[in-house]
């Protein structure tokens, strides 16, 4: 029998889709070489294009989650909120969304209808309309087989150019609330029998929060720490700014039940997904004001300062543990899998 070379992944594996190192490798080795252009190159949440004197922001995202409904939301909420938030993180005001559906033969129509109603409600809340769409049927036999792709169009006001390249040493890092809620909620729904918890997803659109702070000049950039969690976002921002985002572990809020679930499963909540949180990097002189305004908005009322930007390990993020030790916070090399004991 021939021995497989373990260094070559010949097929796509689940780890390619977790937003960690293997996802980055896939993008850099397959997509970027083929599509390379100055808009795509920085690999941000969306691209800002100058069209007819206007600065338009364009973004897209696909949504795959099992189960389709979980405590606090559904794939429909994610498909709207996720794309709206990607526009907002670029500093754009969302204008319109597209929605494309891939349905399995066997998908229950009632389930689809519920998901679509969730999308409509989420879009109304975020103040956007779904203006065009598409439907395809593929595959068979899965009563929960539903994938959604949305694209978002927004307008970036004059004077706003948020980007990691604007981050400076001494800048403050703000986080809008507890981490890991969404990922923990989905895991708890997925293994409902074994895990008796009641954690709601944090899925929401962040337009009120972003509009509240957008005119503060010291806001350097924003990110929504979705797939890969807070740690991945801090690692990416460090890489893209060439600086070191250093977070204090004891300042990062984690719900007690999320922490418990993660402990049982051997997962690190800093790498667990969020769907309604934001990280903002803000100049030191504007950090208090940004925090005050964020706390006045319901979705970000628990905003906290979690750390600051240094240059001690250029391009890499750090975490200071509660005991005062410092350890690196890197992209996860492979997906987190629940451990055995």
């Amino acid at each position, binding site marked *: 029998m021939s*021995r497989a070379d373990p260094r070559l992944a010949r097929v796509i594996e689940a780890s390619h889709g977790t937003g960690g190192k293997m996802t980055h490798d896939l993008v850099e080795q397959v997509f970027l070489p083929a599509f390379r252009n100055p808009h795509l190159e920085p690999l941000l949440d969306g691209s800002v294009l100058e069209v007819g004197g206007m600065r338009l922001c364009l973004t897209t995202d696909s949504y795959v989650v099992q189960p389709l409904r979980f405590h606090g939301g559904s794939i429909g909420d994610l498909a709207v909120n996720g794309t709206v938030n990607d526009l907002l993180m670029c500093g754009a005001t969302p204008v319109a969304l597209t929605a494309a559906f891939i349905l399995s033969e066997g998908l229950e129509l009632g389930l689809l209808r519920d998901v679509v109603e969730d999308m409509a409600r989420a879009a109304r809340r975020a103040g956007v309309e779904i203006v065009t769409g598409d439907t395809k049927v593929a595959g068979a036999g899965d009563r929960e087989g539903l994938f959604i792709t949305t694209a978002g169009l927004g307008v970036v006001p004059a004077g706003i150019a948020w980007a990691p390249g604007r981050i400076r040493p001494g800048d403050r890092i703000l986080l809008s609330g507890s981490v890991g809620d969404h990922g923990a909620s989905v895991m708890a729904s997925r293994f409902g029998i074994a895990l008796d918890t009641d954690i709601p997803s944090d899925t929401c659109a962040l337009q009120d929060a972003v509009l509240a702070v957008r005119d503060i000049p010291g806001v350097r950039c924003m990110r929504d720490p979705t797939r890969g969690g807070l740690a991945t976002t801090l690692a990416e921002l460090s890489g893209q700014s060439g600086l070191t985002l250093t977070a204090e572990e004891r300042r990062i809020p984690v719900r007690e039940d999320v922490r418990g679930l993660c402990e049982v499963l051997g997962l690190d909540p800093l790498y667990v997904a969020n769907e309604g949180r934001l990280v903002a990097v803000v100049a030191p002189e504007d950090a208090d004001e940004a925090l005050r305004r964020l706390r006045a908005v319901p979705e970000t009322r628990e905003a906290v300062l979690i750390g600051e930007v240094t240059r001690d390990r250029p391009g890499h993020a750090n975490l200071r543990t509660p005991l005062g030790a410092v350890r690196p916070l890197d992209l996860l090399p492979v997906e987190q899998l629940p451990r055995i*004991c």
Partner: protein
Amino acid sequence: MRYVDEYREPKAAQGLLAAIRDLAAGPLRVMEICGGHTHAIYRSGLDQLLPAEIRFLHGPGCPVCVTPAVRVDQAIALAERGCIVCTYGDMLRVPGSRGSLRQAAARGADVRIVYGSLDAVEIARRESGREVVFLAVGFETTAPANACAILRARALDLRNFSVLGSHVLVPPVLRHLLKAPDTGIDAFIGPGHVSTVVGSEDYRFLPEEYGKPVVITGFEPLDLLEAVLMLLRQKAEGRCEVEVQYRRAVRAEGSPKARAVMEEVYRVQDQEWRGIGPIPRSGLGIREAFHAFDALRRYERDLPVEAEEEDARAYTCGEVIQGVKTPLDCPAFGFGCTPEHPFGPGMVSSEGTCAALYRYRHMDREVMR
């Protein structure tokens, strides 16, 4: 939210660290047996905070790491012949000699993650037309739960459920380590979870036969600091004994109920340890009375009996797993051998020594190269 205890913790830790510094006279090399401890040490950065006299040696206590490659090969073979293979998440990426279960799943095999052994029984009950194999690995911690799965399957009279087991025992591997002439081990941090099942009595041979003190320890950073302090006190006071720091969970007699279930379903047998080799009477096999639920018996004729050769690049693994070398002594560590592409056992599970060091101490690796 976790603010309150997190603010209190650094203070308590400072107190323990100061007491440790006062007592640390001369080098103390402490082996923590359990992978959970290794992970906790690196995650909290304890190794950076302790005085240089205290050195941790990382022991062989990650059950995923020491599961022989042939067991993975067998699970893949069963998955490829149409069985549903259920297992714990961290077994998925472990390479056998022909790739991992994760890769088999990517090629279409039906491999499912379970969170407990009874979930696997439940899958067998629901999917009565399919054969379900539960790849069950672990130390004394998980063995009772896996035994319960067999008892439950028998109670339900399931004909489509079996267990592909690789259960290992802590005391025999410690005896094996201590047989070497110079182990470099001065003291042990005993496994917390294992001891909730087996109790503390099983470790008395360490002080009595080998003169090595043991403190059975919990998994929080403060637990580990307290354990180090307890070991130093033993040394200072001229004592050498088994002590329990993890008193909130461990009793001297362990859990009689769990021990009884293990006794009913398993018998002690010789066992192969990945990276170490065979160790006499160090594993658990399924008793004859339950052979219908033993995948090794049930599919005897269809299973590979030994792995193709272990990856030649994994030659340092045995010494790392036994605490003789650290991952930094290994030329492959971080260069070729990474969590994405592990060569050997220490890197395959998130709680393996190499994986823990790779993830939490990247900086050292960069500095040392």
